[in-house]
Structure formats: structure tokens, C-alpha cells
């Protein structure tokens, strides 16, 4: 019992210190720029909890952040880096929107699952390409996953301006998907959609998979030392392939949820900066799948606080991005300090 408490506090203390230090550093800048530092802190941290609407907003943000983080951390467990979550999200969103538009007249119990499944399948296929190149030719997956992001930008542009273009919209956008493809709203008068339940469910499944199953153990062992894992009967090359495709599926699902839950159509730019935040979340959580949802929620709170701060105090929201980056830096530093 005492041991568990010590190990929990040993894990948490570096995080608290890192968060405090990053806020301190950001506060310095905010103060120098002539703003009220304490009010800025308060806005960043508590905006999410001021009203049910703001909290719903936070949760809507939390969904893609959590899924993007998982799209990164699942392959990371096997020692592979999926930096293509953005492209997989976009291609998943294209698949979801395509199905939602083409089969717009289907009833909800058919169309909604089809839209979500299309997102998963398209995301998986987009990740399968770099995964196969790695499996077959040993081509570095970091390079291929990143480069495919750029391909996906052109793809979404083509789909939103040529195939299903909404002529009424000023920005590249498709026509809306069928009403049956929309995720139900969980809270009245907010845009909190049922994608939250799906995302949390996925996070739970991923945690059980990596920490409580023999197959997940093989993933972790491969990430810890692929050569030794192979010597003890683990098919590491297949696991590299599988982990990247699983990551792509989750990213694709997050694209489908953005379409079915938030926009109800495909909009260029719907990927926002979710990839970068997902990477930061995954790295802050150090790939620990118990920690990822909590870190993702915290980052969602910061993001909502950032826009509130920009709106009400005119402090650039980018200040919060600096805070997030500093937290990551301090966490990585604390590892170095501990090793010394």
C-alpha cells in the first residue's frame, strides 16, 4: 500500500512540477506584455467549467484529441512512430462523408454505423500504405506517414471542390451528409455529441488491449526490444504492420466523428491542429494508455481556456500552445534528471 502510494506520487510529482513551471514561464511573458497574469491563469484553467455549454465545448474538443493521441501511442507501444494521424483523419473523414452523401437516404440505424465504419476503414487503408512499405521494404514509417499527410490535403481539396462541392459555401466544403449519418446530441442546447462515448470506449479498449492481454503484451515487448522479442517467438514485423494500421483506424474514426458529430459535412481544415496536440498528449503521457485520456482532457481544458483568454483578454491564444510545449519539455527534462 505504502509502496503504491510512493510510486503514484513519484509519477505525479514531475507532472505537477512541470505544469507549475510552464505556467510560471508563461505568466512571465503575459506579465511582461502588460496583462493581468492571475486573471489569465484563471481564464485558462477555469473557462471550461464556467457553464454547461463551455464544458460541453471542452468535451467536443477532447474527442479528437484523445483519438489522435491514441493513433500515435498504439504504434508507439510497438516502437513505431505514426506521424500520419492528420492524413488518416482527413481520409477517414472523406470516407465517412462520401458514404454519408451517397447513401444520404438510409435510416439512422444503417447510415450512422456505415459512416463510422467507413471512417475506420479509410483511415486504416491510409495507414496500411506506410505500414506495408515498412513491412515489405523496411522503409522508415516516420517519413512515409508524414508525407502522406500532404497527399491527403490535396485529396480533401479535390473532394470538397470537385466531387461533392457545396456551391453555396465560400470555403471548400461538401454538401451535407444525410441526417441519418449524424451522431446524436448528448446534451440539449450544446453540440456535445455521442462521439464522446465512442472515444472513451476506444480508450478503455486500447488500455485493456495493451495492459491486460497477451497480444498487447507482445506489442509492448516489441517496443521494448524487437530483437529479443523475436528471439522469444513474437512476430515483430507483423506487429509493426498491425500497430500502424490500428493507429490509422483510430485516426480515421476521429475523422468520421468530426464529420458525423461536429460538421455534418466535409470541410477543408477540419483536422485543425489535432495531430500536433495528439503527439504532445501521447508524449506527455509517455505512451501510458491509462494516462492518455487524462492528459487529453487537460489539454482540451487548456485549449478552451486559450480561446476564452484570446476572446476576453486579447492575449494571443498561442500563449497556451507555449504552455503545452513547455509542459512536454519539462516532463522530458524530469526524465533526464531522474536518470542522473
Amino acid at each position: 500500500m505504502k509502496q503504491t502510494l510512493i510510486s503514484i506520487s513519484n509519477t505525479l510529482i514531475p507532472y505537477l512540477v512541470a505544469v507549475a513551471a510552464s505556467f510560471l514561464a508563461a505568466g512571465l511573458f503575459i506579465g511582461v506584455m502588460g496583462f493581468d497574469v492571475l486573471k489569465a491563469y484563471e481564464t485558462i484553467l477555469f473557462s471550461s467549467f464556467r457553464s454547461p455549454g463551455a464544458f460541453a465545448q471542452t468535451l467536443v474538443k477532447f474527442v479528437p484529441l484523445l483519438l489522435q493521441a491514441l493513433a500515435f501511442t498504439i504504434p508507439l507501444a510497438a516502437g513505431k512512430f505514426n506521424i500520419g494521424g492528420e492524413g488518416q483523419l482527413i481520409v477517414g473523414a472523406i470516407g465517412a462523408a462520401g458514404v454519408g452523401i451517397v447513401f444520404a437516404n438510409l435510416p439512422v440505424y444503417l447510415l450512422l454505423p456505415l459512416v463510422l465504419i467507413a471512417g475506420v476503414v479509410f483511415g486504416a487503408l491510409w495507414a496500411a500504405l506506410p505500414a506495408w512499405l515498412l513491412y515489405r521494404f523496411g522503409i522508415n514509417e516516420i517519413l512515409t506517414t508524414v508525407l502522406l499527410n500532404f497527399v491527403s490535403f490535396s485529396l480533401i481539396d479535390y473532394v470538397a471542390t470537385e466531387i461533392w462541392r457545396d456551391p453555396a459555401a465560400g470555403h471548400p466544403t461538401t454538401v451535407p451528409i444525410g441526417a441519418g449519418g449524424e451522431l446524436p446530441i448528448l446534451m440539449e442546447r450544446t453540440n456535445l455529441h455521442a462521439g464522446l462515448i465512442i472515444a472513451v470506449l476506444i480508450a478503455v479498449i486500447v488500455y485493456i488491449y495493451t495492459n491486460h492481454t497477451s497480444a498487447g503484451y507482445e506489442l509492448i515487448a516489441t517496443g521494448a526490444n524487437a530483437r529479443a522479442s523475436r528471439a522469444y517467438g513474437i512476430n515483430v514485423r507483423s506487429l509493426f504492420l498491425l500497430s500502424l494500421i490500428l493507429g490509422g483506424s483510430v485516426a480515421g474514426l476521429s475523422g468520421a466523428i468530426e464529420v458525423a458529430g461536429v460538421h455534418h459535412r466535409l470541410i477543408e481544415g477540419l483536422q485543425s491542429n489535432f495531430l500536433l496536440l495528439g503527439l504532445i498528449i501521447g508524449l506527455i503521457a509517455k505512451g501510458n494508455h491509462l494516462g492518455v485520456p487524462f492528459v487529453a482532457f487537460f489539454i482540451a481544458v487548456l485549449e478552451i481556456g486559450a480561446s476564452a483568454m484570446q476572446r476576453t483578454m486579447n492575449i494571443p491564444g498561442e500563449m497556451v500552445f507555449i504552455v503545452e510545449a513547455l509542459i512536454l519539455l519539462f516532463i522530458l527534462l524530469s526524465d533526464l534528471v531522474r536518470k542522473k
Partner: protein
Amino acid sequence: MLTPQQVDSLFNSLRAMVKSGLSVIFITHKLREVLTLCERITVLRNGKSVITLAREEATEDTFIKAMVGEEMNIGQSLLFAKSGYEAEIAQAGSKELLKVDGLSVEAASEENRAISDWSFTIREGEILGVAGVAGNGQHELAESLMGIRPCKGKIFFDGAELTAWVTRDLLARGIAYVPENRWDDGLLSKATVAQNLILGSHRRLPYSNGLMLNLSAILKRSQELIDEFKIKTESPHALAANLSGGNVQRMMIARAFSQNPKLMIVHNPTQGLDIPSTEFVYNKLLERKRAGMGTLLISENLDELFLMCNRVAAIYRGRIVGVLERGQFDAYRVGRMMSGLEQ
């Protein structure tokens, strides 16, 4: 490693250097070599200088006791009271456990030799030794038998021909492996000690029902193994990267023995172990022999091979030069065989 002949010639050179007025400090864990060569001996244990004596001042036993401390009963020891165990070690069953026919394996790297057309058997309760200078086929032999490295030839295990060379199946059929390169092939440094201990058995009882891990069983069994094999670690949850070399070796030995395999392939199993731990491993090997299990002991340590094996195969440049039976063991002869002087 040096063959016994090369050790002799090294010693002769050292003696010549001393005669011409040079001083030599000779640092080794091989007691026999110190006793043959040196005039004054300091024994170090746990970072402390235990004794310093002139060679003539003391008997061999004095130095042994100084090296191993009080925790070992030298009179009962496999290492120091060999004759008491001779009859037991010389025994072996009659039923073939492993039969290898025409094994050929390509070289693992440019420094290594390919294996061509090896045939040998291991009986139940037998320890077969493989003696050779590193890089003459040992690594290829171990990895091909474990299904890690592709090979040609036929292998029969426990009465059935192994057609699929899949490591996972071999582990499940009861073959365990202690690799030579513990850092690269044996240790999951970024995982916990418990996660390391279950590697290879992670789909089987008691650790798993095939799908879900049983975390409490893993914790309980790892703690037992940590205690039994004296692995120095804070807890089963500690990071394996923090283990010292000797403790990584103990962990790998514990992992292999805990699988209770019918056949064990061990490559330099006592490298980096202190004398009590080495003694412990030898006792464990003897226990396996009593239970009728087979062992392939690949080692660069001829003392170890001669102590534990029923037969020793000497290899040179990817070929088996000859197989000596217990009773014919002769360090100089094996030395000639493994340096290619005797065909």
C-alpha cells in the same frame, strides 16, 4: 577466448617478461590460472580486498574461501568437490530427445561461420556440450534450433519431426533458450522485470489464459523467481534497464528454467555470474538431468563443459571436428580440435 595451448603460450610470454625485469598484474576470475601463474595473489570480493598472500603461503582452499565467502559450502560444492557428483553427472537416459540431421545454416554476420551438415543427438537426461572459439557456428546453431534463423535439414524433437520452424511453437513444445547476447537478444530493457520474466510464456498458464494476462499470477510468480534466482531488484515492477549484468543473466536463467522445458539451449549461461551463482546454475542443470530433461550447453568455458557435460562436440570453422565422451575429456585435445590443428 584462448585455447588451452594459447593460454600456455601466453603464460610463457608473461613469465619471460617477468624474468627480463618487468612486473605484471594479472586480473582474472579464473582461480586455476592465478594459482599457476602468479607469485602474489590479492582476492577481491564485493569491491573489497579480502586477502593478499604469497602463492606458497596458502592452500588452494584458502583462496577459494576468500573468493566465495562463507555462504557457500565448499565441501558440498559442484565446482570444488567435483568427484562427489561424478557418477550422477556421467549418467544419461537412453531415449533420444533431439535428433538433428544434416543441419545447415548461413552465417549470421561476416565474422561468423556458416554451419554445414551437422548431425547430432541429445538423449533424455543428457547434457551435450559444444566447445569452440566464438563465431564458429555457435550463434547460428542456437538460433536455428530456436526457429529464429532459417536453416536446412531435419530436426526431430520428442519423437516427432519439427516441420514448422516457428519459435512460438518450439517454446510451447518445451524448448527454452538462454541467448548469449543478453542485452540484444535477452533483455527488454524498457519493460519491467516481471514483463521480462514472462517473455516467451506470455500466452500460456499461469501467466495467461491465451487471451487475457493474469496480472496477479504474473506478480506472484515473478516474485517467486526473483527470490529463488536471487535477482537483485526493488520489485517485479522495476524497470529492467536498472538491472546489473549479472542480474540480467540471472533473470534470463530464471526465465528459461521457469518454463520447465524438456530441452534447454543455453549459450554461455554463467557469463558474468559470481561463483555462488555459477554453482547455483550448475545445480539447476543437474536437477534437470535428474528429471530426465536434455540440455545443449554451448560454452567457451572448457572447465564448465568438462564439469557438466556427458559429451562435448568441438567445432571449428562451422564444422563439428569431433565428439568426445565423458572420460576422454582432455583440454589440450579439445584445444587442438577447436583451433583446427586436429581434424
